[in-house]
């Protein structure tokens, strides 16, 4: 789960982190009220969307007067950024920027640690800095058992900040950053930029947090922050039904058990010249209600012309799976009209399963291998999408 700027700032602030003052608004009225409340100019108006590149898209604007703020705020609230309508706007008191830094805690998969990353080149894409001049970044893997020691934070801070007093302040911020990552079960806590203002204070001007979905059971308060304005509703609905789903642009709907096999199924469709409409892992179960839900979500996209079921009945018996599928197809009969269903089912009792499917009277096309099924689906979808 991702916390975008306004959420990340709220959370960091609640953990005692210094963040830029701001108010979140949804419309012009709220914007006017927020400006009255802040009573200070210039302000920065920032589109709150869960994608990068807001600034370039015109989603971040400075305003020096109330009129200007209202006008620019209105414009941003009616924008779309990378296809996502802007539904939230952060009105923030402009910070007098002396210098921008990057600070972040990232999950380091290779070293199996959290790594603290800092750079004096803040305010830009850190991956770009890593590519072009990696020497401008310092990284410190932090032991999860021992945490970040004071001296480690100081060492990094003295490298990052020129001013000695500022470095001591910065060291406390780095400690707070690691504490935040640990407290939140985060796989990323990024403050970019961390700004040195005219008063000599360090303040978070933009932030992003990635939470570990597997740890959300420990953080019901964070789960409640899920922003339904930007959440992908189909994906959420699928997740609630125990399915793992991602919509793609093609016309062949995929229904597969197992994440790896589901990815490979998409790849094989593409290999034969077709385009998958989705990633879908229905998990280990072939319960009819799960299959119905899966079909229901896939078929919401009118582009879908063909459905391809690729099921490897590992432990479960294929005849049981076939029974579940037939039940589901019966329920979905009208929705499936005109949409051929290709089924590849393999594992224990697969011959029985195939004959059950074939004799069900349903318009199902049964095939023997994954490749054969993909070819058939591509052919039925009319070749290359």
């Amino acid at each position: 789960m991702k916390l975008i700027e306004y959420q990340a700032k709220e959370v960091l602030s609640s953990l005692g982190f210094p963040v830029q003052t701001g108010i979140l608004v949804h419309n012009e009225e709220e914007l006017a009220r927020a400006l009255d409340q802040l009573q200070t100019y210039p302000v920065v108006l920032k589109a709150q969307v869960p994608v990068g590149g807001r600034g370039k898209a015109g989603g971040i604007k400075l305003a020096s007067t109330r009129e200007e703020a209202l006008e620019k705020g209105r414009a941003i609230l009616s924008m779309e950024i990378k296809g996502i309508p802007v539904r939230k706007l952060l009105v923030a008191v402009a910070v007098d920027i002396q210098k921008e830094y990057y600070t972040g805690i990232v999950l380091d998969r290779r070293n199996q640690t959290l790594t603290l990353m800092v750079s004096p080149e803040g305010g830009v894409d850190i991956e770009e800095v890593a590519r072009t001049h990696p020497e401008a970044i310092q990284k410190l893997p932090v032991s999860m058992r021992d945490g970040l020691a004071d001296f480690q934070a100081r060492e990094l801070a003295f490298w990052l900040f020129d001013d000695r007093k500022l470095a001591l302040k910065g060291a406390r911020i780095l400690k707070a950053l690691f504490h935040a990552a640990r407290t939140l079960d985060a796989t990323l806590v990024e403050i970019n930029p961390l700004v040195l203002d005219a008063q000599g204070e360090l303040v978070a001007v933009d932030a992003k947090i990635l939470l570990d979905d597997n740890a959300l059971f420990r953080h019901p308060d964070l789960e409640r922050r899920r922003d339904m304005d930007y959440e992908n509703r189909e994906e959420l609905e699928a997740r609630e039904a125990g399915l793992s789903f991602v919509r793609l642009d093609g016309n062949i709907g995929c229904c597969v058990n197992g994440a790896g096999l589901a990815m490979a199924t998409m790849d094989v469709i593409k290999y034969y010249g077709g385009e998958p409409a989705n990633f879908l892992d229905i998990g280990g179960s072939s319960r009819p209600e799960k299959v119905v839900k899966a079909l229901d979500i896939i078929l919401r996209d009118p582009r879908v012309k063909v459905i391809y079921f690729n099921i490897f009945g590992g432990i479960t018996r294929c005849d049981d799976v076939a029974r579940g599928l037939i039940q589901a197809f019966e329920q979905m009969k009208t929705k499936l009209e005109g949409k051929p269903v290709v089924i590849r089912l393999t594992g224990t009792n697969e011959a029985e399963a195939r004959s059950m499917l074939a004799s069900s009277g349903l318009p199902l096309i049964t095939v023997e291998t994954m490749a054969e099924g993909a070819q058939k689906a591509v052919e039925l979808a009319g070749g290359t999408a």
Partner: protein
Amino acid sequence: MAILVTEATRVVVQGITGRDGSFHTRLMKAYGTPVVAGVTPGKGGQEVEGIPVFDTVREAVEQTGANTSVIFVPAPFAADAILEAASAGVELVVAITEGIPVHDMLRIMPILREKGVRLVGPNCPGIMTPGVAKVGIMPGQIFTPGPVGVISRSGTLTYEVVAALTRKGIGQSTAVGIGGDPIIGTRYIDLLKMFEDDPDTRAIVLIGEIGGTDEQDAAAYIRDHITKPVVAFVAGRTAPPEKRMGHAGAIISGGEGTAEEKIRAFEAVGVKVAAIPAEVADLIAEVLS
């Protein structure tokens, strides 16, 4: 010989009284795996499938000589269960559980390394040495003993490839599901080394997917240390960036972890990469002949 799971394996099932634990205990036993004990705290003294249940792993190990643990404990308690097994003196812990928090794994990995206990998984289908024993949930009927070692981040994709090998009459020495999480106990490199040293293994299948850089590390290791032929498949060429594809670890993030870069890394060191899963068996047949 084979690796990790051999004739000497004696299994304790943690979470044996749960739905998955008891079901798979039955299947492991039916395959001929010596399952000697089960553990569910508070349910000691019971029996599941004729196997004695203990309250603690320590008791189970002391009384039955179990040396391998397989974990079906629910995710919130699984990291603790792994540590319990490691502290009780088992040599190998196989964690089937999906959904263990990343921070839990970050916390326990250094402890396991210190104790010298090997963890396979989590979020994996386990280990299968065909004809000898299976520890986990892999379907026994698709395997047959033979010369191919299999390493995979995915369950069903492993079955797909193994079934194709078996259909071609090519058996497997050991198949290891390493798990789909970002932080796992045993990685490609560990297993490549074991298969290289295993006289029963003549070729290696490596099944990867998007996310992380373990495949790239494996490629570098193969170049420097592996003499046996390796055939790879990498799932997720069509996966969009920044989207988690089912597995917690299967995500292209910040442009890193794409299937293309992994495939390039393998091809650069002479590893044959199958375009589709079905091709893996063909390529293995080629390298074995």
